[in-house]
């Protein structure tokens, strides 16, 4: 039970009006709510760490409500009256509290929740929201007559700051509340927000910041985020930790079925998942990817003999569709919702009494936050069931359950501020009041992610924003920002300002295509893509890269149905209903998040500890015992490498346990090296735990004859020249660069006068990447992209850490056939795209196929004949 605060403290901190309000609702102010009131009174910034359901948001706002009530109930306050004119205009009243959340839906929901105490107590407080959906007229009004409390997003804050009247608007600001801070700080949005805060500290020196966060691994990093930093001094906000709720009850599904070796469908446990949904009031079923959600949803309905109301929720579904599901859930009309991380954050929806997590948990903190979605009453434990989809995931689930029991956290560390985000911010600053570079440098370094920013990087950013940052100084006359006579930087013309407004933000969306359902046109598959009937019902949106991998005629699951890919026209994909029982195209891309380093470590320890195996299902114990007998169980700090022949090819399988992204990068680099060592590699597949490479050369023999040295093969120096050579052509690196080019403002997403966002960015960033790499390899944007690659799609840092860890501890096993531990990754072959093959090989293959076709058939035969 939450501890009630002592009566004296209560009296002192909470005015009578508020105490009565609490009493009327049979609530008691919680200790952490009062603690935040005390911090506010002492003018201290603070971080509140509290579990879901602890009244976190009310705790954040309570100090503002109390303060505003005291200050503004003074009689006949003229609203926003000006007391002087000119630069030092002051208003009485004005904006007092700014609330920033990662989701605009959350801002809207919080506004609604705030209205209640304000109305009940008749507080003289005006609350408004400002999001991308707020009409222009209202935004105008908000600038002139700001509300007392404004609820908004990091992007909107950036826009508000990038205007001449920002000093006026924010001068009165006293309090900033940052909600879901743990989620905000892990991305470039967090960088943008930190720079916004740095600006606010200048405009409103009296400002206090309150951060609201779930439990994190390193609270001090978030505490740094909330207060201005000094060049050589770390400042921390105060810390308030709410009482933990009841410990969650987390179990692993003890399946009666045979546990699959590989795959991510968890089809084996379908009946058991269904029974769990049936036995509970509302169950959230989390999965890691959209396609898993699709598959599971469809399978559940196939066996839904009771007609249970089960719905589907993921980020690619049409917004209207998603809102419908959320509303139905809020009113308790749904018994089960299959969802992705689209429901990780956000509003509380009704009474969820069970969370099922299907597949890999990926990280302990992530899992705890998901579990927290069940049961928003603190004193009752949340209940969750983990359903591993394969044997390796059993290990991962076990490790996660143990970590949760210990309340061990593995949230990622605070970012180093990205230079592309800084470039966007600098342009925004030049859109507002002109600035001096020296002053801005100090201001920027007060933001925790940029505390260690080098002056050289800062100057390069300014140069980049001004004229592109090129060694060849030919763009001076096209500069976007210029220095005035007194040395201050300002935008060169109003068009630059307009362009900034249209392109603000750090979320670069995956290129998405609309999916429309049309009638099949299999009878007439000739001609250009324009031949399909246009129109058709909108099913949702899909990533362009997914469609790029398809050939017309391929089937896949979308919106809960199996559909056939018909054609692509501009930004729309046409699909028809397919009768196939199984979709041909699996599309497990592993989800956005790799297995956390922490959980990977625990899995390795679990593997190495024979006694701990007892906590695993018998089938898994048998599997591991067999591995021990025929090969070797990888120890916690070593790398086991197995080589064996199979079907005229030779395989090398290793088990780094570092996540799919790092493994993919490793696979790319290993195949390059194997090529040089004449092992004639053909390709590789990676999963979260292992990597399998196959080759024509007999790698076992080569190792025996010392023609292949594993220590040399896995030497960390692969991150030197080999990496550089590969980066030149890596599609992942190009994607990383594209994001930097867009965020930094080099390539606009939207053009002035063409406000509708277009499918294609105006200019292929791949071409820019190629030219820049050749002619100015140390350009700011390439540096920014390399910094991203370290932690992003290429996961280089993690790969580097692993290579260093296993140096000198590589154990080779020469086998005559595949080992039990290798089976899962070997089964991925054929389901996952194969990497590592030169484009020429693939093109040649396509050309070969053509020759077969050309000799027998007419060219305009249905393309779907390519289907396997």
């Amino acid at each position, binding site marked *: 039970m939450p501890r009630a605060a002592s009566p004296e403290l209560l009296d002192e901190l909470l005015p009578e009006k508020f105490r009565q309000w609490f009493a009327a609702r049979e609530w008691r102010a919680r200790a952490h709510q009062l603690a935040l009131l005390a911090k506010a009174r002492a003018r201290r910034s603070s971080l509140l760490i509290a579990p879901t359901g602890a009244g976190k948001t009310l705790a954040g706002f309570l100090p503002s409500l109390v303060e505003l009530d005291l200050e503004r109930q003074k009689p006949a306050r003229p609203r926003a009256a000006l007391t002087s004119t000119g630069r030092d205009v002051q208003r009485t009243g004005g904006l007092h509290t700014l609330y920033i959340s990662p989701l605009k839906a959350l801002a809207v929901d919080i506004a609604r929740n705030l209205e209640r105490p304000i109305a009940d107590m008749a507080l003289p407080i005006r609350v408004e929201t400002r999001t991308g959906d707020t009409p222009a007229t209202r935004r105008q009004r908000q600038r002139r007559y700001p509300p007392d409390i404004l609820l908004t997003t990091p992007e909107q804050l950036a826009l508000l700051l990038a205007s001449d009247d920002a000093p006026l608007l924010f001068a009165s600001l006293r309090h900033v509340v940052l909600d879901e801070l743990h989620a905000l700080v892990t991305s470039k949005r967090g960088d943008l927000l930190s720079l916004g805060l740095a600006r606010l500290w200048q405009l409103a020196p009296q400002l206090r910041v309150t951060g609201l966060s779930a439990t994190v691994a390193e609270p001090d990093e978030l505490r740094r985020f909330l207060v201005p930093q000094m060049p050589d001094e770390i400042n921390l906000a105060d810390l308030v930790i709410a009482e933990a709720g009841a410990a969650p009850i987390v179990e692993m599904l003890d399946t009666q079925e045979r546990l699959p070796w590989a795959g991510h469908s968890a089809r084996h446990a379908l009946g058991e998942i269904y029974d769990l949904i049936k036995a509970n009031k509302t169950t959230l079923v989390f999965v890691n990817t959209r396609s898993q959600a699709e598959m599971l949803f469809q399978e559940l309905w196939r066996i839904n003999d009771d007609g249970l109301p089960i719905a589907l929720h993921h980020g690619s579904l049409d917004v209207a569709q998603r809102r419908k599901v959320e509303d139905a859930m809020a009113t308790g009309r749904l018994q089960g919702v299959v969802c992705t991380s689209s429901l990780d954050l956000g509003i509380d929806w009704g009474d969820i009494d069970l969370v099922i997590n299907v597949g890999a948990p990926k990280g302990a903190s992530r899992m705890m936050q998901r579990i927290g979605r069940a049961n928003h009453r603190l004193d009752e434990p949340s209940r969750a069931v983990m359903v591993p989809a394969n044997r390796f995931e059993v290990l991962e689930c076990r490790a996660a359950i143990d970590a949760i029991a210990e309340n061990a956290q593995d949230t990622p560390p605070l970012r180093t501020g990205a230079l592309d985000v800084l470039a966007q911010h600098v342009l925004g600053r030049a859109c507002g009041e002109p600035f001096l570079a020296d002053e801005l440098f100090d201001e920027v370094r007060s933001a925790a992610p940029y505390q260690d920013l080098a002056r050289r990087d800062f100057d390069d950013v300014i140069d980049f924003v001004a004229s*592109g940052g090129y060694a060849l100084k030919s763009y001076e006359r096209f500069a976007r920002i210029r220095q005035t006579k007194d040395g201050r930087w300002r935008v060169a013309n109003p068009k*630059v300002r307009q362009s900034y407004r249209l392109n603000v933000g750090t979320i670069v969306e995956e290129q998405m295509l609309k999916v429309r359902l049309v009638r099949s046109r299999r009878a007439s598959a*000739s001609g250009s893509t324009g031949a399909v009937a246009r129109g058709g019902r909108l099913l949702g949106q899909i990533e362009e890269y997914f469609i790029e991998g398809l*050939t017309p005629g391929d089937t896949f699951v979308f919106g809960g149905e199996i559909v056939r890919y018909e054609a692509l026209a501009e930004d729309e994909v046409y699909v028809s209903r397919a009768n196939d029982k199984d979709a041909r195209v699996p599309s497990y891309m592993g989800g956005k998040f790799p297995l956390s380093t922490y959980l990977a470590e625990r899995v390795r320890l679990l593997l190495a500890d024979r006694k701990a195996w007892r906590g695993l299902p018998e089938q898994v114990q048998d599997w591991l015992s067999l591995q021990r007998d025929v090969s070797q169980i990888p120890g916690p700090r070593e790398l086991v490498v197995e080589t064996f022949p199979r079907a005229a090819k030779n395989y090398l399988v290793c088990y780094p346990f570092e996540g799919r992204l790092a493994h993919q990068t490793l696979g790319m680099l290993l195949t390059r090296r194997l090529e040089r060592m004449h092992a004639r590699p053909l390709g590789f597949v990676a999963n979260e735990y292992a990597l399998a490479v196959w080759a024509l050369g007999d790698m076992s023999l080569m190792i025996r004859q010392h023609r292949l040295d594993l220590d040399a093969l896995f030497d960390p120096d692969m991150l030197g020249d080999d990496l550089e050579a590969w980066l030149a052509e890596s599609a992942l690196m190009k994607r990383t660069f594209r994001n930097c080019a867009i965020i930094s403002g080099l390539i606009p997403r939207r053009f002035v006068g063409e406000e509708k966002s277009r499918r294609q960015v105006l200019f292929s960033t791949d071409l820019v990447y190629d030219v820049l790499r050749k002619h100015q390899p140390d350009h700011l944007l390439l540096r920014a992209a390399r910094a991203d690659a370290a932690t992003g799609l290429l996961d280089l840092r993690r790969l580097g850490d692993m290579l260093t860890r296993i140096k000198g501890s590589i154990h080779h096993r020469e086998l005559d056939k595949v080992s039990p531990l290798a089976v899962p990754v070997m089964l991925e072959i054929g389901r996952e795209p194969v990497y590592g093959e030169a484009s020429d090989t693939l093109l040649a293959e396509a050309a070969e196929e053509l020759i077969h076709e050309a000799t027998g058939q007419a060219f305009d035969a249905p393309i779907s004949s390519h289907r396997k």
Partner: protein
Amino acid sequence: MTRQSPPIESDPSGRATLHVNGVDLHTDLSGALVWEEERLVIVSDLHLEKGSSFAARGVLLPPYDSTATITRLAAVIARHNPRRIIALGDSFHDGWAHLRLPEAERAAVAALQRGRDWIWITGNHDPELPRDLGGTIASDIGIGALTFRHEPTGSAGEIAGHLHPKARVSTRGRAIDRRCFACDGQRAVMPAFGAYTGGLSIRHAAFAKIFRSLGFMAHVLGDRRVHAIAAARCY
């Protein structure tokens, strides 16, 4: 119309042969065409100074595109040592691009022109070219059985550019997007040569007007070879 499969030939050097209206032309991996008998090299759509053209509109693309394009062109010329060069239109990205061309690049072009017959074909981006560029300026030119012009009309024996053909091929879950020549044995459309030139899918309606059916080939520029792939197989 006869549905005769277009001839496919490839050679160990990665060079492929395009038969157009009875003439054999060789492809260069850079996207240039070579007519050996005539000692002629053809390149299309250089779009010089496209970078600075965007910069003037506020998009500060790296200002190295002209250098990159001319360096590649110099390599092609060194490889084949032609007597004559045809730049098949849209050599300059806009009407003022030649004025913005840096002195070093201007000198590089002049050096390439020395001792060679150089023909600038006008394009929609550069309909009026100044005289001081060196070489001859023409809207089109006929040599033997072939006609060279910027915008394709679909007539037999025509070598054109303008459309920037590219092909997307997907196999095994991977899609590869490359520039290509489009050719049906009667006519050909060349890929764009410039460093900042994007592409248009050969499945776009614009190609249907030139080739009338999908019975044409995409000669796709790979890393070391040119691959002949049926247009119907690409998208």
